Structure formats: structure tokens, C-alpha cells
């Protein structure tokens, strides 16, 4: 009882900081990506930290994984390159099993860290076309930790709580801008209060293994949206006090005040529910199939709300030099995305196995229908369907004792994605963007090495 209590304490207490967009688009690890992600039923390497945390307790072996991943985009609008940046970085994973008496448990760690940055955001003008699912979402780090238990030999549970944050920023600027000598004569200072406020989302999974050759699995990943709230004040609303701001034109002081409230969503990952099965009709052959339901219909908007209050007292003699343009508030534009169901299939064949070495060959395919509607209005959240084919191979070296009581694996994968042409026809004949056709290709690959201790 004490043993079970200790293990449940771990299960209930552990949590996982995470940010998961690159995993959703390109997968994690090499074997699992080569199998098109159809691994929820039987994944057991450290990529289980993304695909199904129940798998980290599956084989009871300490596993350490490290590798490199990269993806190159060739996405175009009317055959002009959209300059969607490549993504590449390190992949690290860890499965640590343990026993207290007969009670089996494990904890795991999964990390994807881009080479050049932890994350990147790019905010474009509201009407400029952007590849909503590929432009910014992959440019984030991924970090997750999980715990799993195996109460009986055919049943495993795993899970954790994800951590992300949304931001609240209060910015104040005061002082003066010298219109005659803006660099030398301006006297400004600023005060920034910024909070990255914690949000949490769950990831839980289960694996059921009724026989040696048949596995089932299910996993749920929670929704999260990285919203951003900003309150900015420049100057003082009554144009007085220490926080006042304004312009100086010669000896003339022009008091001004601006208050801005803004709220938007910087990144969104929908609720996801995956069901998978794998079968081994012969020991050398594994076939996995899977369906993933992504609830994109709950995505509210990528275009946020902005409220502006601007006041300036322009003296008549400066009426020609300082003209106030019209400022309009904006409201969120519904994204009107739809749910999608993603089918996946992956096949693995082991043509050679001996006490010294084993070789695996893999292939997979999945299809993602686009959740984005046709962009007929002024805004352009571009997306297209995606067909992804993958190939992979692995070699396992098994005779490395006494230094390594286990095995050393090397896995390689290549993935090609085709985004077939999708025409966007505008309702308005004077739309500033006009009609266009979106399409493209994505090339991805990776190399992973894994040390496994028996």
C-alpha cells in the first residue's frame, strides 16, 4: 500500500512545462515520424512523451535519446515563395523506469529546442497573407515531463500537466520628443511591468495490450491558446503630473496622451484525441493505424481586439505640421475553422535480427485536411490540405557489453509533404490582396541515436 501510495504521489504531483506546436506539425523522434505518427498504441521510446505518455513505462528500460530534426518549406502564393522559414533543432528524450516491489512506474522527459531561438513571433499587417499553421507555430521550444504506471501487465496509464503562459503587460512612457532634434533632444523614459501568467493543460494516455501481437492506445492532449493582453499609456490623461508626455517644437510644448488596450491570440493548439491500434501478424512486421480528432472549430481568432484613446492639444500655429490621422478600434475576426480528423498508417519491417544487430525499415502516410475556410474576406489565414509520406530506417547494435549493458540505436527518417493547390477567391473585386492560389511542399528529416539500458 505504501508503495502504491508513493507511486500515485508521483503521478498526481508531476507536471510538465510545454509548448508543443512543432511536435504537432512534424512529430517527435525518428522512428515515430517515419511511421507517420501512428504509434499511439505501442510507442515505447522517449517520443512517447509526446505521442502517448503511457508508453514510457512499457518496456521497463532506461532510454536516452538525442538527435537532430529539420524541416524546409516551399510554400507559395501564386507561385511566389512565401518565405516561410525552415525549422531545425535538437531533440532529446528520456524514459526512466522504476519498481517499488512489483509496482512499475516511469517518468519521462521530451525536449525539442530550435537551433537559433527558443521561439519566434512575427506579427504582420492584418491583411497580409500568412501560412497560419506553418509560419510561426513551429518556432517554439517543446518541453514535457510525464509519469506513467503499469498496474497490470496489459494496461498502462500515463499523463502530466502542461504549463504555458499568457502575458499581461502594462507599459508607460513619459517625457518629451523634441521635433527639431529627436535623437539628441528627446527626453523619454519608460516603465514596463510584464507578467507571463501560468496556464495549464493536461495530456493523458492509455495503452492496452490484450495479446503479444495486438495493441490499442488512446491519448488526449489539452487545448491551449497563447493570448496576450496589453495596456499601454503614453503620457497622462489630464496632461499633468510626473507622467505627462508631449512634443516640443522649439519653445512650444504640445501635450499628448494615448491609451491602448489590446488582446490577441498568438498561438493556438486545439483539443486532440487520438485512437490507435497496432498489429504484428508476424514478429518481423508491425502495422499501425490511427485517427486523430483535432477540434479546430474552437479556435476563435488570430486577429485581436484593439482599443485606442488618443488626445492631443495642437496649438493653431502647428496645425499644418501636426495632423492627427483617424484611428479606429478593431474587433476580433472569427477564424471559422473546422474540426478535422487525421488518418495515419505506419508499417515497420525487420529484415534482419541477430544477437549482435537488428535492422528496421519503415514507411508511413497521413492526411490532414485543412481546418481553415476559404479566405474570401479581407483577412488571409492561409492553409491547404496536406499529404505526408515518410520513410525511415534504423539499426540497433546489441553487443556492446561490458561498457553498455543494453543497446545503441541509430534511426533516420525523411518526410515529404504535399500541399495541393487551393484557390482563394475574394468576395470584393477591390480586395487589396485579390485572388490567389496557395500550395507547396515541405521536406523534413532527422537523425536520432538512442541508448537503451537493460
Amino acid at each position: 500500500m505504501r508503495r502504491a501510495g508513493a507511486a500515485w504521489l508521483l503521478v498526481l504531483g508531476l507536471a510538465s512545462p510545454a509548448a508543443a506546436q512543432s511536435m504537432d506539425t512534424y512529430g517527435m523522434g525518428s522512428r515515430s515520424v517515419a511511421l507517420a505518427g501512428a504509434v499511439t498504441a505501442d510507442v515505447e521510446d522517449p517520443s512517447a512523451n509526446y505521442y502517448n505518455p503511457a508508453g514510457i513505462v512499457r518496456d521497463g528500460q532506461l532510454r536516452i535519446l538525442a538527435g537532430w530534426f529539420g524541416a524546409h518549406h516551399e510554400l507559395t502564393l501564386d507561385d511566389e515563395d512565401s518565405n516561410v522559414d525552415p525549422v531545425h533543432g535538437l531533440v532529446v528524450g528520456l524514459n526512466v523506469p522504476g519498481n517499488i516491489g512489483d509496482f512499475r512506474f516511469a517518468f519521462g522527459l521530451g525536449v525539442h529546442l530550435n537551433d537559433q531561438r527558443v521561439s519566434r513571433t512575427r506579427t504582420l499587417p492584418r491583411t497580409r497573407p500568412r501560412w497560419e499553421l506553418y509560419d510561426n507555430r513551429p518556432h517554439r521550444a517543446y518541453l514535457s515531463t510525464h509519469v506513467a504506471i503499469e498496474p497490470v501487465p496489459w494496461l498502462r496509464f500515463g499523463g502530466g500537466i502542461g504549463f504555458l503562459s499568457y502575458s499581461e503587460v502594462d507599459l508607460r512612457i513619459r517625457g518629451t520628443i523634441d521635433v527639431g532634434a529627436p535623437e539628441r533632444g528627446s527626453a523619454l523614459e519608460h516603465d514596463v511591468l510584464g507578467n507571463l501568467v501560468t496556464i495549464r493543460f493536461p495530456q493523458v494516455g492509455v495503452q492496452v495490450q490484450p495479446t503479444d501481437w495486438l495493441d490499442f492506445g488512446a491519448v488526449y492532449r489539452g487545448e491551449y491558446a497563447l493570448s496576450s493582453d496589453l495596456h499601454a499609456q503614453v503620457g497622462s490623461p489630464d496632461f499633468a503630473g510626473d507622467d505627462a508626455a508631449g512634443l516640443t517644437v522649439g519653445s512650444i510644448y504640445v501635450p499628448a496622451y494615448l491609451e491602448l488596450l489590446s488582446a490577441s491570440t498568438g498561438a493556438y493548439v486545439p483539443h486532440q484525441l487520438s485512437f490507435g491500434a497496432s498489429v504484428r501478424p508476424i514478429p518481423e512486421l508491425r502495422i499501425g493505424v490511427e485517427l486523430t480528432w483535432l477540434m479546430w472549430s474552437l479556435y476563435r481568432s488570430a486577429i485581436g481586439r484593439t482599443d485606442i484613446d488618443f488626445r492631443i492639444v495642437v496649438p493653431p500655429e502647428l496645425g499644418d505640421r501636426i495632423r492627427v490621422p483617424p484611428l479606429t478600434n478593431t474587433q476580433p475576426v472569427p477564424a471559422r475553422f473546422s474540426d478535422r480528423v487525421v488518418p495515419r498508417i505506419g508499417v515497420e519491417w525487420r529484415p534482419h535480427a541477430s544477437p549482435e544487430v537488428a535492422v528496421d525499415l519503415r514507411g508511413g502516410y497521413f492526411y490532414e485536411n485543412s481546418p481553415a475556410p476559404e479566405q474570401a474576406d479581407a483577412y488571409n489565414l492561409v492553409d491547404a490540405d496536406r499529404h505526408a509520406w515518410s520513410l525511415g530506417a534504423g539499426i540497433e547494435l546489441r553487443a556492446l557489453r561490458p561498457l553498455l549493458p543494453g543497446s545503441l540505436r541509430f534511426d533516420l527518417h525523411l518526410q515529404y509533404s504535399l500541399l495541393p493547390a487551393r484557390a482563394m477567391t475574394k468576395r470584393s473585386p477591390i480586395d487589396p490582396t485579390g485572388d490567389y492560389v496557395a500550395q507547396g511542399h515541405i521536406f523534413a528529416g532527422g537523425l536520432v541515436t538512442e541508448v537503451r539500458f537493460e
Partner: protein
Amino acid sequence: MPRLASALATCALAWTLAPALAAASPQDLFGYGGRTSGLAMTGTSYAEGYEAVFANPAGLGPSRRRQLAIGLAGGGFDLRIDGERAPLTPPRGMTIGFALPIPFGDVLEDRITIGGAFFTPAEALMRGTVRFPAVPQWTVLDRAQVIAIILGLGVDLHGLVDGLHVGVGVSALAQLFGELDVRLDETNAFSSIVELQLVASYAPTAGINYRADAWGLGLSYRHESLSRLDLSVRARDLPIDVPVLNVGGLVQYDPPTVVLEGYWRPIPDLMVVLNVTQRIWDFYPGPQVPTTDMGRNAPAPELSSYPSPRVAVEGMVRDERFELALRGGYAFEPSPAPPARLAPRRTASGEPIATDLVPYRLLDNHRHVLTAGAGITIHVGAAGERLVIDAFGQLHVLQDRTHEIGRADAGAPMVTSGVILYGGWTARVEF
């Protein structure tokens, strides 16, 4: 002007779009883990397992069992200026740690252990604050709302020098760099392009310790860790020229720290610890940056370095299945900050301008820290598995300090004082 203001606002908004990993300060203020925090934030010589990842990664070297720990910690600030309470968000968060001996064989057997130490604040993963210089600000204490991510590797040099261990580690931080370009678009409407990058930065740690039967010594070094917010705003096509605006500053800072520590066990169940912690604050540049390239900066913070002495005692009572540990300690944390004062602004290149004196209310006090703790170890498995529960409490008493200026520009010199209570627990399984 509206475009300028909107540009600034958009720039700040852009910062908010980047989720952050960030700096590492709760453990610098209160220690890390359930045991060492009850022992006056010591541990460089004796800490083991996940606690060693922060205290001294060399302490990972002798680990032989896998270790997984969770815990909660939190506290409250009662800081006062002229007797009135100064609001400061109390730290609360979750501790997660692990230690993993790598089971190589042959010459690497019982040689290498890796570990991780994480602290996730309950409310804000990071709080970045850059205040106007005249605003009272607790720069040293207001650093407790930030996530900590630390990894370490320890090596046991048994066979070469029995009892000697070395270790290295790294704490991960994030810095934000960005640009905002504001211009008129083809429809003569305001538009902006924002690109922000959250870049990882790393602060290395290194340590060494030697453990004999009844005594041990440890030495560790943690490099400075800092997090900057650095955004440039450029506005073009406006009816007036607007300077390039720099918004942000140094939002998180832990100074370089050297720790020397020893412990002695006069009897097997009693441990006495002596520790000297030297934080090198001399290089702290202050949180503010000039808002324009040629603008004036806030005064220099002029922080100084003083050693912090610490002493702690741990006693044990044991039987076959249980162990009970009682702990206590004291630390003196001298303030590195000068009193709030009138100080000269600086040019953008850092030269003081003697004719431009402004109030600079960077507040800090000497602290006397009393700690206490207890730990229960339960042997739960036939193979030596253990469940260990540690709890601790800390009382930080801020020594009264009279500053050179008052809270208001015309007021009498202000007096700062206060109390901090902090406590927590951890539970870990060793298997």
C-alpha cells in the same frame, strides 16, 4: 505622435506574444529543495541528488539510486517603507527534481549521474519589471517570480581519488530581442511589422567536493544569469521625425556566485555545516536602459559585494525502517545596495552627469535568516527503495535601514524594514 505611441504599444504587445523560459532567482533567495533550504541555504559540500543540481553539481557524483522529487514552496513578504506595507507579490511554486545515475559498465560503472532541478511559479512563469528610477523598487528581493530550469552532471572519481567528485551544470534563461517597424501602407493607413525572437542563454555552474568519513569540503561557482528585454521601435513616413525607441531593460539578474563550504560529523548522526557565499554584485548594470540612443540613462546602481556567512546543524535519529532528521541554521545576507539617494543620471555611454541629479530609490536591507526543517525517511522496498519527505521554514528579518531621501522628493529620509516568511516541502522517491 499617435503613430509613435501606437508603435510603442505594438512593440510591447509584440513582447507579450513570446512565451518565455526565463531567469533563475527563487533558489538564489531561498535555496532549492527540502533539505538544504532548512539548513540555511547551504549544501555545496553535502547536497546529494536533485538538490545538488543547484547547490553543487559535483554532489550528483556519488548518487547510486534514481531519484524523483516533487514539492511545493511559498511564502509571504511583509516589507515596509516608513511603516507602511510595500506590496510585493509573494513567491509560490512547485519544485520538480530528478537524479539519474547512468548504468554504464566497465570503467564507467558508478561514475556518471545526470540531474535536473525545476521550479515553476504558481502565478507567473516570469515577471519582468523595469521601473522609473524614482519609483521605490526592491531590486534584490523582487526576483522570486521566475521559472527555473537547471541541468547538471556529476562525476565520481572513485578509483582515482576516492571521495572526490566534480560536476558541471547549466541554467537556462531566455532573452527577448525584437524589432518593430512602423510605416504607412499602400492605403495610407498605419501598419507595423513585428519580429521577435526569444533566444536561449545559458549560465554555467561548476563545482567540486571531497567527502571523507566524517568531514567534507565543497567549492562551487555559478556564473551570472540574466534576462534582457530589448526591443527597437522604428517609425517611418511620419510627419515628424521620431527617434529609435529602445523599450525594455534588464528584467532578471543573478550575480556570479562563489561558495565555499565544509561539514563535519563529530558523531555519525550529527552534521555541522559552515558556509561562505560570495555574490559578486559589482557588475550589475541596473535594470533601466535609455529610451533613445542618445537619451539619458538612470543612475548607476553601484551595488557592492559582501560575503554571506552561514551555519547549519542537522541531527538524525534512526531505526531499521525510519530515519528522522531535524535541521536548523542561520545566514546573514548583507545588502549589496547603497541607500536610496539622489544620484546622477548617466549618458548613454555610462558617464555620470553631475548636474542631473535624480532620486534613485533602489531599496534593499541586510537580512538575518533563520531556518528550520525536518525530514522523514521511510524504507519501503526490499531493494533499498526509500520515500523521503522533507519540510522547511525560513524567517528573513530585514534590518531597519534609513535612506538618504524620502518616499516623496520633499519628504524626510525613509526607513525600510520588513519580514519574509518562506516554507515548503518535498517528497522524493529513491529507487
